[in-house]
């Protein structure tokens, strides 16, 4: 049998980092509906909303595809929160990190935590880039246009300045910053609405009756801009579902919803989805069309609400970038032995500034968000099956904890296998190296299956649950139960 994994220093550091989150939440710490409505309503409007809404315009979606797709995709997201994530969160009352550790072993938790940190760096980079598009306005520094691989030196200087300030704030006072960002939330929602309403006359819409006509003729016209693939209803619905998949099907919001008194509180995610991922995306799409196809966040927000709009972009980028840096710093601190928090955060800040100076990240933000969702989805599927199905088919849940395994290989192989499935399903039609590899060798039924990245949530989830059941049946039968001693519960 393998030795207890806590002897490893990296694992110990990660455990120490999450020490406070290890125990199930006590009944007196539970929260009611109001807290969850405000949490979700306030935290799903960020700088990225200024980028994602315009992308639907550039990809030539029609108005009915945008409205219908967002309504349907966000409904799927809300149901995923309420029916998949929340029930397990309120029954286990532990963080996703701890649930992964119990199910997949401490090393899998370290890998998960580190990869989350890497994605957070990308996200923070995009946020810094978004803020700089507004900060550049008073200095008359042009923002990088479409197809420009590297911004001007002056723009990069601004990114360095903004990124440095954000990194300093992330080091100095996380708590105050989090409170400030919550104070900004109602104001940001209002700016989005006001900017969109005030921009409509520029598009020839001056009455509610003419909105739908203008929406079809001037905003979501159905014609993709050069270099953009056309988006349909299913692309939009798929993206709305996939956008936060890490948090619902991927189970990351167990960390929040474990404080809920009832699983039904998962439905409060609808506040975030329909304010942030419906209204705000539609509003920023209107702003993009009013700016004649300019999709740079700073200029379009300035056009929509003047100084308030530009300030909204700066704050919307900054108040997500700073906590993102903080979280990424926490995640990576465990693998940078002996480094002070400020040193790790500044190192990450440097990486984030490099990402901010890469315009391709903003241009492809929807794809990057999609890859992120698909990357972390399989572990959420494993948690789901581990909790609900394993006891019913005679398999032991939280097997790594029970058997004191550093890595529960069925979970690790499921993660890799489900990811490879998606990479192959999408890549065989989009990545030249995979296309060359499989050209003429695939059976017709596989060759005919051509999903977009945004269509892969359900297939990948089903592949993940199938693999995890099969691998666990094999894996758990290889070990004689009589040899195993249950380890102490994490609460002890």
């Amino acid at each position, binding site marked *: 049998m393998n030795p207890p994994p806590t002897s490893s220093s990296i694992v110990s550091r990660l455990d120490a980092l999450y020490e406070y989150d290890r125990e199930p939440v006590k009944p007196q710490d539970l929260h009611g509906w109001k807290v969850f409505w405000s949490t979700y309503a306030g935290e799903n409007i960020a700088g990225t909303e200024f980028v994602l809404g315009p992308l639907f315009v550039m990809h030539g979606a029609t108005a009915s595809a945008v409205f219908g797709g967002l309504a349907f995709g966000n409904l799927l997201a809300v149901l995923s929160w309420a029916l998949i994530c929340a029930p397990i969160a309120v029954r286990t009352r532990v963080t996703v990190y701890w649930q992964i550790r119990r199910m997949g072993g401490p090393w899998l938790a370290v890998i998960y935590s580190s990869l989350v940190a890497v994605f957070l760096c990308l996200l923070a980079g995009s946020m810094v880039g978004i803020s700089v598009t507004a900060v550049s306005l008073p200095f008359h520094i042009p923002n990088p246009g479409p197809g420009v691989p590297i911004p001007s030196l002056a723009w990069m200087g601004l990114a360095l300045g903004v990124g440095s300030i954000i990194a300093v704030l992330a080091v100095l006072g996380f708590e105050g910053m989090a409170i400030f960002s919550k104070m900004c939330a109602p104001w940001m929602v209002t700016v989005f609405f006001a900017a969109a309403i005030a921009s409509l006359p520029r598009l020839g819409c001056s009455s509610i009756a003419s909105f739908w006509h203008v929406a079809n003729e001037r905003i979501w016209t159905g014609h993709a801009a050069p270099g953009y693939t056309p988006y349909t209803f299913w692309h939009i619905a798929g993206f709305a579902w996939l956008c936060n998949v890490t948090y619902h099907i991927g189970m990351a919001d167990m960390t929040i919803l474990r404080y809920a008194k009832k699983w039904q509180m998962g439905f409060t995610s609808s506040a975030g989805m329909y304010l942030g*991922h419906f209204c705000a995306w539609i509003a920023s799409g209107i702003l993009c069309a009013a700016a004649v196809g300019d999709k740079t966040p700073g200029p379009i927000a300035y056009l929509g609400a003047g100084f308030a709009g530009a300030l909204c972009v700066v704050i919307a980028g900054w108040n997500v970038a700073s906590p993102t840096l903080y979280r990424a710093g926490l995640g990576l601190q465990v693998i940078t032995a002996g480094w002070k928090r400020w040193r790790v955060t500044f190192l990450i800040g440097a990486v984030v500034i490099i990402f901010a100076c890469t315009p391709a990240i903003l241009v492809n933000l929807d794809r990057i968000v999609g890859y992120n969702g698909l990357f972390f989805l399989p572990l959420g599927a494993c948690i789901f099956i581990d909790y609900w199905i394993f006891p019913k088919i005679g398999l032991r849940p939280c097997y790594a904890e029970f058997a004191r395994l550093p890595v529960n290989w069925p979970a690790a192989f499921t993660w890799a296998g489900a990811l490879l499935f998606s990479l192959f399903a999408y890549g065989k039609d989009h990545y030249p190296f995979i296309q060359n590899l499989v050209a003429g060798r695939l059976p017709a039924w596989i060759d005919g299956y051509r999903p977009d990245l945004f269509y892969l949530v359900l297939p990948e989830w089903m592949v993940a649950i199938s693999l995890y059941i099969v691998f666990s049946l094999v894996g758990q039968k290889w070990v004689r139960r009589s040899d195993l001693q249950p380890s102490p519960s994490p609460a002890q």
Partner: protein
Amino acid sequence: MKTLLKIASFSGLALMLGSAIAVFYGVMTTHVYYIMAAVGTGLWFASVPFWMRHRLHKHSGAGAASPPETKRVTPG
């Protein structure tokens, strides 16, 4: 006092939204709307820390017992 501060905060938001609606119906110029939006922003940020900070400290999000989680970081 707190009620007055709340009224000031929400008046700021109402000013922004109301002037945007006025632009929509053609009864206000964009330039005046920009000024109104800036004034509304000023009202909000000048008043909101005095009544919302206390409330947020009291229960800072769902993750009150978990400092690193006081702000969710979502990609959209």
